[in-house]
């Protein structure tokens, strides 16, 4: 089953490699991984999307907690949470397609953030599934590049992960 795990860790050189190394050494899946510093510059927040049986997910949680630089871990998928991912798509946009792409972007509540005479760059945020459906809804042959961040997640309401 798919799980989205959020963690706080010391913002130190090499901390990311400890997490990435743990996943590869123990054969766990990583679907996506995002990381950036938090409002407290000594700490980074990481969101990992992974999958596995309940036993594997339990081990992933325990093994992450065991890393010295990991401050706290939360399996967001155990409760209500929100997930968002950002995607940038560069597309060929000429002739009638310019209008069509603008319309599709609008339907998916995206934005066109760069325009040349031949190319659009479209920005889209949402769940991974929403981004997937956008890609399915447009003419794929027009895609020049896609860049996705992977999911970031946060617990709903007063479900808070902090030190």
């Amino acid at each position, binding site marked *: 089953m798919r799980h989205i795990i959020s963690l706080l*860790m*010391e913002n130190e*050189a*090499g901390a990311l*490699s*400890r997490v990435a*190394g743990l996943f590869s*050494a123990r054969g766990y899946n990583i679907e996506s991984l995002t990381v950036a510093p938090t409002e407290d510059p000594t700490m980074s927040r990481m969101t990992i999307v992974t999958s596995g049986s309940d*036993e594997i997910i*339990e*081990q992933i949680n*325990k*093994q992450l*907690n*065991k890393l*010295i*630089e*990991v*401050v*706290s871990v939360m399996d967001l998928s155990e409760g209500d949470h929100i997930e968002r991912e950002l995607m940038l798509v560069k597309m060929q946009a000429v002739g009638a397609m310019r209008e069509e792409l603008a319309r599709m972007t609008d339907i998916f509540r995206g934005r066109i953030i760069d325009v040349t005479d031949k190319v659009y760059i479209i920005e889209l945020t949402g769940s991974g599934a929403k981004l997937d459906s956008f890609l399915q809804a447009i003419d794929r042959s027009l895609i020049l590049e896609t860049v996705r961040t992977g999911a970031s997640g946060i617990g709903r309401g007063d479900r808070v992960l902090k*030190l």
Partner: protein
Amino acid sequence: MELTGAEIAIRCLQEEGVEYVFGYPGGAVLFIYDALFNQSKVKHILVRHEQAAVHAADGYARSTDRVGVALVTSGPGVTNAVTGIATAYMDSIPLVIISGQVPTRAIGEDAFQEVDAVGITRPCVKHNFLVKDVRDIAATIKKAFYLAKSGRPGPVLVDIPKDVSNQKAEFSYPASVSVRSYHPAQNGEMGQIKQAAQLLLEARRPMIYSGGGVILSDASRQLTDLVRLLGYPCTNTLMGLGGFPATDKQFVGMLGMHGTLEANLAMQNCDVLLAVGARFDDRVIGNVEHFNQEKRKIIHIDIDPSSISKRVKVDVPIVGDVAHVLGDLLAVLHSSKQKPEQQALAAWWAQIGEWRGKRCLNYKNSDEIIKPQFVIEKLYEATHGDAFITSDVGQHQMWTAQYYKFDKPRRWINSGGLGTMGFGLPAAMGVQLAHPGAPVACVTGEGSLQMNIQELSTCKQFRLPLKIVLLNNRYLGMVRQWQEFFHGNRYSESYMDALPDFMKLAEAYGHVGMRIEKPSDVGPALKEAFARKDDLVLMDFRTDQTENVFPMVPGGKGLSEVILGEEL
């Protein structure tokens, strides 16, 4: 007063009360060696290979409750140390390894003797540090010792670039240390402990299974009290030997791949299992599905939550320091009015007695040829069961575990997790330094011994009177055994040809060598060797070439699918 980084590092070791540093100098640690030279509190043991430095520090740590310390240079110094570090990591041994690194400005330039020490050791350390600022050295080393020793122990590496070791800073050693992201459990949850006590008291076929965690936590007294209070059978893992006295009648022997029939069958057939500081690894319970076929309740005490329910689902998990938890469990049991059901227990012991009656460790002795098991029995006699015994890896290791009845913890020093050949001799050096005057023997094979044979030179330099019990069968015995059982007797590369004359080799290093070829000479040779209190004696026992280790649970099989000696 300002000190150099190197001086600070050595002062930190002094503050930690470090007695010995095992190491090997090189370019990146020259300032640190200079600082060592200018003091006499911390003594340096010059090994002949960095792997041996780490194993020696490891043997020192295992035989005491202290942190072992090694010092190596950058590049090949670190890569040579990696096997030692991984060995300690797999067995949770507290070590601090200080490594030199190329100067900060050269890092990443593929400089001479540069490796990414933090990267290369990351998967086999509890934690590691690269110190980029001389002002951080003291706090980092303090943290390293704290992390190595607390919680589930393990090796910690501190990598210090050469320029940092020569820069100056004010020295003050932090009095205390705390890491905000690290809070190892001490006491177990009381509700869980009460539940465990209740389960134990209601058991009809109970079993107590303890591992290296009991040794590391110095909890053998609590374990022994518990086992005796309940009157239940107890087995130890390879790492746990000595945690409960092997000569006690409640001891059913080691369990696992080469465990006794009674230990393995009691493990398989019990209805309540108390696992203490052990981790159900593949060499202990074999095939998990097979193990799970029998229904039993499992209580698991471990300081590391990730060891619980990793391979086997546990009913009552208790996270905490084994000594603390056992202490609390004992208190609960003492205050309970309920007692174990004696009739069921008697029937269980009768069943175990029946399994014991098969005498699975019996072997056919010989007047002509030396049986390796016989050597271990004689070693036990010669040392009155009270020596520190290190071993390498292979058949000799299993025979020692089976036939040397360890009654005390920290007497049996071996590489259980990683299975590192070449561990025994350097580990014995560390043990001997920690226990001067005590009998220390290294049981080894001709394959393993040659993996760190150069340390005979270190032993000479530091006058370490080890007794090396070489079970020389001219085969890589365990490999040969598997090839015999599972590879149609095709002995691919397991025969050792062109062996050195070990007697002369010992003499070449300035030690005493003996060759023993007759069973009747085994006892007298051991007696003579141990009487030579100041000499290292290498005893080359020419043993039966094709002897196998029994019982054996083949890899991937279940605990009851055991091969006994006479069945073959």
